[in-house]
């Protein structure tokens, strides 16, 4: 028992690390992360990559209800949440790239067993938006985006509670993705396309990517004084 080995995968050099944040791409080749030196996009000018124009109007209107601009703090539209969601559709999340997606599927088992649909999240969005638009046309004679705010809230609540059901997609699952991604886009680092100018972090008092607090640990019960920083290099 004495054979000597050469270490096949030992690193011979240290790779540069500063701001090497990989752009996650799946198939489409679209970059999902913002560049450090570019200002965040203007939502009104943004051309969605995944969503069609009709779908985009839905996403904008729905995000605006989920995190409205009313009251204190920014809303989903001021913080570019729809842009975040569009980018997510092109990434690993939208494609369920990391999930086990082999059949057989048993979508009717108890929800306690987690995701059991054969649809990828981006397919859930596509079918969910289409079905919701059809529902709005049939019930209210208008597309979702054209409804008044109260009716929009009502429709979203119905989706959330499962009071509306669709044939080829789960309404509650569709709503759950929409709400989850909206909150992610609101609170995630701006490098992912939402949380424009770290507005949500400023609103709640989260210092973002500072990640260094040794001097502050035992200064108990005092509000932390510094604003947030982002992976994009932006400082607030």
């Amino acid at each position, binding site marked *: 028992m004495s054979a000597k080995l050469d270490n096949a995968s030992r690193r011979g050099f240290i790779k540069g690390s500063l701001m090497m944040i990989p752009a996650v791409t799946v198939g489409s080749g679209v970059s999902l992360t913002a560049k450090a030196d570019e200002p965040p996009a203007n939502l009104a000018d943004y051309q969605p990559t995944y969503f069609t124009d009709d779908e985009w109007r839905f996403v904008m209107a729905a995000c605006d209800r989920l995190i409205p601009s009313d009251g204190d703090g920014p809303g989903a539209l001021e913080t570019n949440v729809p842009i975040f969601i569009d980018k997510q559709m092109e990434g690993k999340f939208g494609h369920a790239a*990391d999930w086990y997606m082999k059949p057989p599927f048993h979508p009717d088992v108890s929800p306690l067993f987690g995701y059991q649909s054969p649809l990828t999240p981006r397919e859930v969005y596509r079918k969910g938006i289409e079905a919701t638009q059809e529902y709005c046309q049939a019930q209210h004679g208008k597309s979702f985006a054209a409804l008044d705010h109260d009716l929009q809230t009502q429709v979203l609540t119905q989706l959330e509670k499962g009071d509306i059901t669709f044939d080829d997609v789960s309404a509650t699952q569709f709503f759950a993705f929409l709400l989850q991604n909206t909150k992610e886009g609101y609170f995630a680092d701006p490098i992912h396309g939402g949380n424009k100018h770290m507005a949500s972090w400023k609103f709640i008092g989260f210092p973002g990517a500072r990640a260094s607090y040794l001097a502050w640990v035992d200064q*108990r019960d005092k509000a932390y004084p510094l604003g947030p920083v982002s992976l994009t290099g932006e400082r607030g």
Partner: protein
Amino acid sequence: MAKTNPHVDVVMIGLGWTSSIMGMELTDEGLSVLALERGPDQDTVPDFAYPKMADELTYGVRYQLMQRPAKSTLTVRHGIQDLAVPYRSLGSFLPGNGVGGAGTHWNGHTWRPQPNELRLKSYVEENFGADIIPDEMTIQDYGVTYDELEPHFDRFEKVAGISGKAGNLNGEIQEGGNPFEGWRSDDYPLPPMKRTLNDTLFRDMAASEGLHPFPLPAANASQAYTNPYGMQLAPCNYCGFCERYGCLNYSKSSPQTCVLGALKQRKNFAYRANCEVMKVNLASDGKTATGVTYIDENGDEVIQPADLVIMGAYSLHNVHLLLLSGIGKPYDPISGEGVVGKNYAYQMNGGATLYFKDKHFNPFIGAGANGETLNDFGVEQIDFGQEGFIGGSYFNAAMTNGQPIRNMPLPKGAPSWGAEWKQAVQETYGHTMTIGSHGSNMAYRDCYLDLDPNYTDDHGRPLMRMTFNWKDNDVRMTQFMKQKIDALSKALGPDDYKLSFKDFDSQYDVRPYQTTHNVGGAIMGSDPKSSVLNRYLQTWDVHNVFVMGASAFPQNLQYNPTGMVGGLTYWAAKAIREQYLPNPGPLVQA
């Protein structure tokens, strides 16, 4: 046709905590040791360097460092009559993937078991009578004692540079430590971490209630430290991106920071990343292993001959590989015969969220194992006969992070979206703390692991199937803890608080994260009829296969597993070095 590599003395499956430690111990003997790790190579630089780690979406929410279910997962069901369905996306537990394993992205709560947890069945029988053990409960003794393991716990704590305060030094109770812990031969190598507001509030309240609070033993360095391998840890900066992240500061004890830097220097050690072991190969008599077969980074099948096989693939994967390799008899829950897969157990936790309008907790200032704890309701402290359950728990008031996507506790009745949600977020963020109960989970006849009949992985191998649900004994335990935590929460005088504990109608839910403390399935013991491994973690049936990790636990401890896993690894290494190598064969006669 599979290619065959040159022979090595030892092949290790996986390169997390257990294989890293084993690598040091066995290269010390001059053996050639090769570790095969299915995931990527990763190290502090460049992989965990600032600022890219400080990205909640990528690492905290999308699990960049964890196992990908697309590549590796299992199926889950509640009962033996049910159809199991795949754990398609991660939730309840998050196994690691890549060099360092889950030890890269753990929290670092580092505990030793209480001595009687290791002889639980005997302890219960001696003190409360065998008849209090429910029929379906299959608890066992570990077959190794606390006294035997003590030097190895100490060794692991020194290698990992644990920050804490001893409560029992050689039998003498120490002020400010855990008076209910087993004896220790030495204090922790580093003093406790700094105290945050939640710590001091909880500590002062608990002390005034006559309880015994102490700082959580932490694998986050409170000071600069050099370990016995010469590896250096820098003081933790409470970065708030600890659990689910690699440490950007060389402060979290991990295989990389504590062991691998030294191990990689050794000429008789090598590791290959992106190499997934398919199975352990057996000689034609089935009594010894000849090595392993793996798929290399190019997708080619490779046979790796070796004299000794160490499984360090994480508890769940160890059991899967045993089942796939035909080592040991698979467990049958109907007859109760067979052993591999038997006694899978988890962790029974609950907690309270407390809201204080006027207090600033600055939750983003936190470390993985930053917290104040108490063990007054531990396994050894409870009268099982009187309370009507077997088990125990420790409580912790921990402040690990304030990452807003996942860490946004809201008051009772707050809506989950809309203008009122936004208002609740603003009012609550930074003003809450938690008290958690981290409790034991017993083993049961119908909680086990086997191969799934319906689902396969990319290589056509059957997935493993987990059959698991919560049982009344453990719910009674957690309901007992709920009463205690309710009272402690009230005593802290918050503006509002809410409790979240399992109840008698609770079923296992794979969606919310609970813990990555999956235990059992390849349990240790003193009888080959009821265990897979002997007391040295050697398989009873194939003497040159040793299985590390929490798969060896016959039922779960009240604590997080890694202190015990580390201690057991050093214990097994000593047996291999001193007994097995001079005379290879079964270390315990069946």
